[in-house]
């Protein structure tokens, strides 16, 4: 009973997160300017992290947690490096 409730709810949540990732991917592909693409990429990273956490709850293993942590770190580094690039035209001055 509880496994069925949890399973169906997590399936619905994963579909919602997939739709959210599709919205962010649309903004990455069709963003009118470069800063819209960077913002869409940041949102895509956050949604992917939440999707990995829901996979971890479903499978009951803590392996997905490490992947989510790495995605969070990479998302921050990517967003700040791309913002620096938009600001100055180069990443490392």
């Amino acid at each position, binding site marked *: 009973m509880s496994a069925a409730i949890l399973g169906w709810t997590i399936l619905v949540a994963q579909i919602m997160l997939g739709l959210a990732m599709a919205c962010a991917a649309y903004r990455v592909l069709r963003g009118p300017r470069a800063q819209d693409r960077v913002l*869409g990429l940041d949102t895509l990273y956050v949604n992917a992290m939440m999707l990995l*956490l829901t996979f971890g709850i479903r499978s009951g293993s803590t392996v997905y947690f490490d992947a989510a942590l790495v995605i969070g770190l990479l998302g921050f580094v990517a967003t700040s490096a791309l913002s620096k690039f938009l600001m100055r035209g180069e990443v490392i001055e």
Partner: protein
Amino acid sequence: MIEVAADVPLWAAIPTALLVLLGAGLALTGSFGLLRLSSFYDRIHAPTLGSTLGIGCVLIASMFFFSVVETRPVLHELLITVLMVVTTPVALMLLARAALYRDRTEGNPDVPPLPGLDPEEPVPAPEGGEAPESHPAAAPAEEPASAVRTVRES
């Protein structure tokens, strides 16, 4: 039938399910706002709904679920919480400042000019050639404009 690997009692399954669903709904709302809002400065506010409250709900659900499954406090999701709380404002602040800088150097009339300049007069466009003589403060903005111009084509 859709099953979960670990079996938990019903009193633990219901809060976990509700929190996961709430977090995913908030993330979907934020990403839908990113899709629908009109200007960039509106859009930058929308995904923060997912990256603060949404991921907070999912992380609390994950902590609660694994604490019940392993019958001990599992708190390593706090690492991601601290990471998101620290890094999200920094990254989005950098992005907003970069976007404001690009809009100003292009003379976009939708953004407010630099505080040193006359509010009556728009910021000169970088390819416009000369800065107005009465505003020497406009001159330093000319120097990195060519670098920005090359970036904008991408």
